[in-house]
């Protein structure tokens, strides 16, 4: 059962020199599946991720989230879907510097307002503890290391219990130890919590733990090698 399906997704930038970022992309993501998107720089990996994450609108094609066609949705409806069903992790932590770690994690919960303030705080603290950030809850991002910040960002992405976590180069700015840590966390989210993970990465180690890879070149998804071809030496 797919949680996310994209059909013939195309994204073009109009301007003096029109650019096609993504062309005719068909993607299907199952619940609990860990998928990485790989490709050379400028191939359209992030653009595809943003389209799948409802951050951008396709020029043509459609995205179905949990069976719901999002193509006719206005900006507010898309934002509400992101709030309720999706979580984002970026290469840079992108935390709000004026707020503590726990306040950053509470931010999406406060916007959704499904839990009471006490429950929001409790959940935020639990998420931070689960990600090994005990004792760092009330520190500001500037007082945390790069790896810690990224884990806070992951906790924030998980705040509203999303069905899909989208990550754009989540280990791109981390050292190898922190990268391993983040990779393990995301893997566990898919395996243990049955969340779908879609991550853009250049990191081969990171990609190695994924269930499936999507290769993209010049905006087009490269079909996976057939079993016959892969058997050929």
């Amino acid at each position, binding site marked *: 059962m797919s949680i996310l399906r994209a059909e013939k997704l195309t994204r073009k930038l109009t301007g003096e020199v029109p650019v096609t970022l993504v062309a005719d992309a068909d993607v299907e993501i199952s619940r609990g599946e860990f998928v990485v998107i790989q490709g050379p720089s400028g191939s359209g990996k992030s653009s595809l991720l943003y389209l799948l994450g409802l*951050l951008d609108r396709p020029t043509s094609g459609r995205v179905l989230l949990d069976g719901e066609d999002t193509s006719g949705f206005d900006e507010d409806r898309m934002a509400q879907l992101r709030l309720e069903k999706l979580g*984002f992790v*970026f290469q840079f932590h992108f935390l709000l510097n004026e*707020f503590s770690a726990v306040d950053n994690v509470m*931010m999406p919960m*406060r916007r959704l307002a499904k839990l009471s303030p006490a429950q929001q705080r409790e959940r935020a603290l639990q998420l931070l503890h689960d990600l090994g950030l005990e004792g760092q809850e009330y520190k500001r991002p500037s007082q945390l290391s790069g790896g810690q910040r990224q884990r806070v960002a992951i906790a*924030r992405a998980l705040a509203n219990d999303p069905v899909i976590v989208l990550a*754009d180069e989540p280990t791109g700015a981390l050292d190898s130890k922190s990268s391993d840590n983040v990779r393990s966390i995301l893997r566990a989210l898919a395996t243990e919590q049955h969340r779908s993970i879609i991550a853009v990465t250049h990191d081969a180690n990171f990609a190695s733990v994924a269930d499936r890879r999507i290769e993209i070149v010049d905006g087009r998804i490269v079909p996976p090698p057939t079993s016959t071809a892969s058997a050929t030496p």
Partner: protein
Amino acid sequence: MKLHFDIALSHLRGRQRQTIVSLFGVVLGVGFFLAVSGLMRGSERDLIERLVDTAPHIRVSDEFRDPRPQPARTLYPEGAVAIRGVKPRSERRGIRQYKQKLATIDAIRGVQAAPLLVSQAIFSFAGQDEAVTLSGIMPARMIGVSAIENDITAGRLDAIDANPNGIIIGEALARKLSLAMNDTVSVVSPVGNVRTMKIVGLFATGNSGYDESQTFAQLTRVQALMNRPDVANLIIVRLDDAYRAQDVARTIETATGYKSVSWQESSKDLLDALTVRNIIMYSVVGAILLVACFGIYNVISTVVLEKTRDIAILKSMGFHAGDIRRIFVIEGALIGVAGSALGVAVGSLMMRGVQRIEIKPPGSVESISLPIYWGWDQFLLAAAFAILSAVFAAWLPARKGGRVQPVDILRGAA
């Protein structure tokens, strides 16, 4: 809303210096708004109070607003009547049957009226002649209608009833002619009658022109002096509510036929000038506040620019464009509210300072404090104007913030 408020507050704290400068602008704007408006409205009210307190609310004179229609026009209202070379009939001046007219006016609710015979006279004393206005009055009626009783500094107003040859004059006139209480003075009327009258009272209104020229005597005595028995040429009216004067004046004019002029009509030019002055004043103080709000526009524009990445992140999390707009509008409102609160305090201090300044207006013999209006409405107006301007100043960059497309920013940041 609390979430938006927290984010807005964090932005302002992040740019403390700029926030304080724009806050200072609003504080000064509101402060000056209040000081100028308080002074202007205070002087306006003071002027109107003086008009209302010192002068009658309505003056019914022995004149007609429009010339009486010619009989031929009355007879042929639809006819093409041309009348030339009309000579007005010589009539005895004065309000006909003034006692009946007075009774008609007395019947109106909330009204007190007093008849006067106002004429010119010459005071002759110690070889000096002085032209004065001699008003024949009925003290019992005058007390309820005119403020002259309050300005009596020696003697009593009703002393002219006790002594029919008594006269009350202004202190300034007394000084000019070296007169004192109980002195006698020769009064010559325009018809040549001469009577020796005794000073039984002195008054000082503070208006030197009035105090030098106005005198009061008993109505019947003045009627006799002027050879105009049983005549009054002016009825002055005072109302419980001075602001009903225009309506009551119309009623009196309809009932008596004589020209009845309310204080608003007689001071129309002055009141119009006050309106123009108010428009100018509010334009200037409003401009001060608007300029102050450019500071808010500046600080919030800068915050929007600086926080573009944060806006993109908030939107990627699921914040709507409306949430972003609300955050920045709250920032403007916070500066507006805090600036208004402090501005009201600063403005009150400025008003108190201005109130302590004493001046001597031209034509007045006493120093007075600058009048300040302390009505809550101007505080409300200043605060509301400041907050609305601040919100408007914030709205423009807030709208821009709401339009930020997260993808554009995230692509650039990656």
